[in-house]
């Protein structure tokens, strides 16, 4: 025969024991959380790498990337022809539409977009959630290096290609020192 209230007492004993232990609460915002490098907080733009290829804007499922650009003619160098290049005028991401899928970052062929774990950019008005290239560029300083991957991961093809090229170029081949990084 069970004592009446034995179950209740057992539960209260758990509470009592927990009371003697250290609290697990994070003291945010006094103590900032330590977020892993892959954390999808905000998208940062490295403007120098952007060639205005439009791939990110076209791959975005939410249509939330706005890009404007114009063509600029580079005067012909001595004995050459004059060339045209695209100049980025506007690059904006509307974070009120963004679903944080990261497809734009995967699609970018020139490594101009990166994830940053930074998350403190709340606004009081939804219309202020569209961030222009200046703001996106500021987040570049918060982009962490990608973490090393598991030892059983496949070696990225780029590494092997790079080593071959190096061996070809220099007869006394130096061993490649690059760390194993995530294969995209």
């Amino acid at each position, binding site marked *: 025969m069970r004592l009446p209230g034995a179950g209740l007492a057992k539960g209260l004993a758990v509470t009592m024991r927990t009371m003697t232990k250290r609290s697990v609460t994070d003291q945010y915002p006094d103590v900032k959380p330590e977020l892993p490098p892959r954390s999808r907080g905000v998208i940062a733009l490295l403007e120098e790498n952007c060639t205005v290829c*439009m791939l990110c*804007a076209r791959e975005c499922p939410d249509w939330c990337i*706005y890009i404007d650009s114009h063509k600029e003619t580079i005067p012909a160098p001595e004995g050459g022809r004059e060339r045209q290049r*695209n100049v980025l005028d506007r690059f904006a991401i509307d974070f009120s539409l963004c679903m944080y899928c990261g497809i734009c970052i995967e699609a970018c062929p020139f490594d101009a977009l990166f994830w940053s774990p930074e998350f403190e950019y709340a606004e009081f008005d939804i219309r202020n959630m569209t961030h222009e290239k200046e703001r996106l560029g500021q987040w570049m300083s918060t982009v962490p290096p990608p973490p090393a991957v598991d030892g059983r991961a496949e070696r990225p093809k780029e590494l092997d290609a790079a080593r071959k090229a190096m061996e070809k170029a220099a007869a006394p081949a130096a061993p490649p020192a690059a760390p194993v990084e995530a294969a995209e």
Partner: protein
Amino acid sequence: MTEPGGELGARLSATSTAEAAYGQVTYDVAPADWVATLTRARDDLGFTFFDWLTAVDHEADGMDVVVHLWCLDRREHLLLRTRLPTAGLSLATATGVFAGASWHERETFEMFGIDFTGHPHLVPLLLPDGFEGHPLRKDFVLAARVAKAWPGAKEPGESDAGHTAPARRASRPPGVPDPAVWGPHPPATGAEPAPAPEPDGRPEVEP
């Protein structure tokens, strides 16, 4: 790929055909045999677990109503399909066989406009009151794809007003209707083809 339904098909319905693809068999029956086949599947063949019922719009070729049942004892699938002609989007209700078909039929009714005759409470399930149109029909235009211009339509280096990038126009992203047949037309261009008239006032847009 369509062939007579084999042993299981013959027990389901005398007129059924079967189509095997990707390791699964789909049995096709005539709309008139729908409820009788479902009853046989449940009572004689042990497909007692009702998974789901839905429809697929094949535009001019009509609409498929598909149901998936499962036999808990033998661990077997039954994918059953019937084709309704565009002129007669109506099918007898399966709620008498599987009580759980009720919501699935209500959903299919509001999304595709298929009438399930004999359903005890055939009213919209998920859509708000007064919603017009059947959103999962192929001719229903998704508002999110027409409410604003596609940012990807611009060509690199050609954002200024002078450029209109006609090459990109041809490849619209999925879901964006052809501007020649959908959307506002300036009155001056009366020679352009008017929006194709639709049987019940379509195309529509989500409110």
